[in-house]
């Protein structure tokens, strides 16, 4: 097990390095002068002396390979640099925002899972109509864009019913709508994936033998089929987490929640390279960790994997 963890950790480190490199060259490919971004964004009307000074200070006049190595070196030391726009240390900025986004995405993942599982269980117990309706709901849920769902929720739960605040407030009540907005489309997707494997699982030999042994239908469904059906959905959770971060960009903007998603959007818009790099690395790190975790869960849930 330890060897497995170490191999995965090495793989994760490689992923982080590759992400950093991709971002470095990707952002440099965007047209525009980074020195200008540092001096207050586009249209800043900065003087040539100020631009030159900034270029020297930030090492932007060095040849590209030197800049790359310097950047990588800094990252290895854990130095994420200073945000061009906010002039603050990127690491501390992200630290404050990271928690907010993490809470949002993890909660959304859990809620999505619960909804998907619930629909799957209902499908197995409710017969054809329940399956059809559940399937229909999942398809609709997966086809709804976040920004639209957010608008509908605000309209219903805030403007019409006054049950919930329209923009995010500290505390649990302010999380309800953002989490639901992120969770429902994901639940639709996870549900559809699970449905496939659940149908397979229910008609497989080991379920047949469980029934033959006299286990109740519920027991069969819950203990055997769903456990089995969850496997592909568990493995997709790593990817799902990544997609939640993308969704968080829209959700944090609409609900005015401070977070990595929202700052990523503004950072790309004003070409704030250190901030974009920092956010990308942090989300890549989170993704790697979640993937390792779900793989570990996989190994626990599916004994067949332990022998490899």
């Amino acid at each position, binding site marked *: 097990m330890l060897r497995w963890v170490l191999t995965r950790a090495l793989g994760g480190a490689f*992923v982080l390095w590759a992400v950093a490199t991709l971002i470095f060259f990707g952002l440099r490919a965007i047209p525009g002068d980074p020195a200008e971004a540092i001096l207050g964004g586009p249209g800043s009307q900065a003087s040539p002396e100020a631009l030159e000074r900034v270029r020297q200070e930030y090492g932007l006049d060095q040849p590209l390979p030197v800049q790359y190595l310097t950047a990588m070196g800094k990252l290895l030391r854990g130095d994420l640099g200073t945000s061009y726009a906010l002039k603050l240390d990127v690491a501390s900025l992200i630290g404050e925002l990271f928690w907010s986004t993490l809470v949002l995405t993890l909660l959304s993942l859990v809620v999505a899972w619960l909804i998907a599982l619930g629909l799957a269980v209902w499908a197995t117990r409710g017969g054809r109509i329940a399956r059809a309706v559940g399937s229909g709901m999942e398809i*609709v849920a997966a086809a709804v864009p976040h920004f639209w769902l957010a608008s509908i929720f605000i309209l219903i739960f805030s*403007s019409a019913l006054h049950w919930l605040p329209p923009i995010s407030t500290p505390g649990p009540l302010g999380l309800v709508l953002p989490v639901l907005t992120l969770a429902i489309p994901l639940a639709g997707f996870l549900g559809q994936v699970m449905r496939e494997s659940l149908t397979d699982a229910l008609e497989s030999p080991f379920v047949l033998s469980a029934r033959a042994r006299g286990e109740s239908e519920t027991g069969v469904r819950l203990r055997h089929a769903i456990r089995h059906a969850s496997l592909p959905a568990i493995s997709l959770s790593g990817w799902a987490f990544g997609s939640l971060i993308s969704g968080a960009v*829209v959700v944090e903007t609409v609900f005015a929640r401070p977070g990595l998603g929202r700052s990523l959007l503004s950072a790309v818009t004003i070409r704030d390279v250190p901030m974009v790099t920092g956010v990308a690395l942090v989300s*890549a790190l989170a993704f790697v960790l979640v993937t390792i975790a779900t793989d570990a869960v996989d190994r626990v849930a599916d004994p067949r994997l332990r022998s490899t």
Partner: protein
Amino acid sequence: MSLTDAEALQAGTLPRRHDVRARPGARVTPGEVVAGAVLLFLALAAIVPELFTSLDPLAISPSEAFQSPSPSHWFGTDESGRDVFARTIHGARPSLTIGVAATAIGMVLALILGVLGGVGPKPVDYTVTRVGEVLFALPGLLLALVFIAIVGPGIVTSTIAVGISAAPGYARIIRSQIRAVRGAPYVEAAVVLGRSPAAILGRHILPNAVAPVFVLATLGVGQAIVWASSLSYLGLGAVPPAAEWGAMLSAGRSYISNAWWLTVFPGIFIVLAAAAATSLGRAMQARTRQVGR
């Protein structure tokens, strides 16, 4: 061992059951008929929109703005007085093109990565898996934003961006399917019988490996349209005045409390397209499932 092997194990060792549904040439179910009809309707709308409406989707009439649905305007009019029904019908072409093209781009990339990983020697497989993980690890929206910032906004760019973001997911599944199928008895038999590697790949491995991806690809069509509409919301998508469902959804959102018809109808069509595509995928999968022969 990575998590893809979990899927592989599942796919490879779970024998298919001999069931009414898993049969080529089985009878069509009512659900499949409906899905087929919807797809036909959407395809016709995309190819010959004039069949359904004679109104010009781009004809503005500011004095007729924000009219609610009525006999003269079935879906109402938008903020510039354009007929929403006409725009929705004409929107089928660009929207479906985005959905299909982005998914196709993703699938092509995924096939390349997946085949390399599934069939190639271990080092190639390792590299390709890592590449996939890196693409996975980057938030899809970030990829899209940076790509669009480099290349410039527009429908083509956002389609490519969405396709690239979707590729790693499909690649991972294709790869694991290929690995699973490689160990199947009929492939072993083909090797023993001396078939060429190309024939084995083309006749046995690929068809069996790719078929299960169809359901996900059809899910992907709807997802691609939704992603493109999110890019429109962020100001990076279709160029006006093109009628495109996602852009209409995003533009109509500003008026959602006083002109609900601007978002509801394009939204319904997006859901219809996604649902029909998913059903189609499921139907195809049910008929092409290969029991371990």
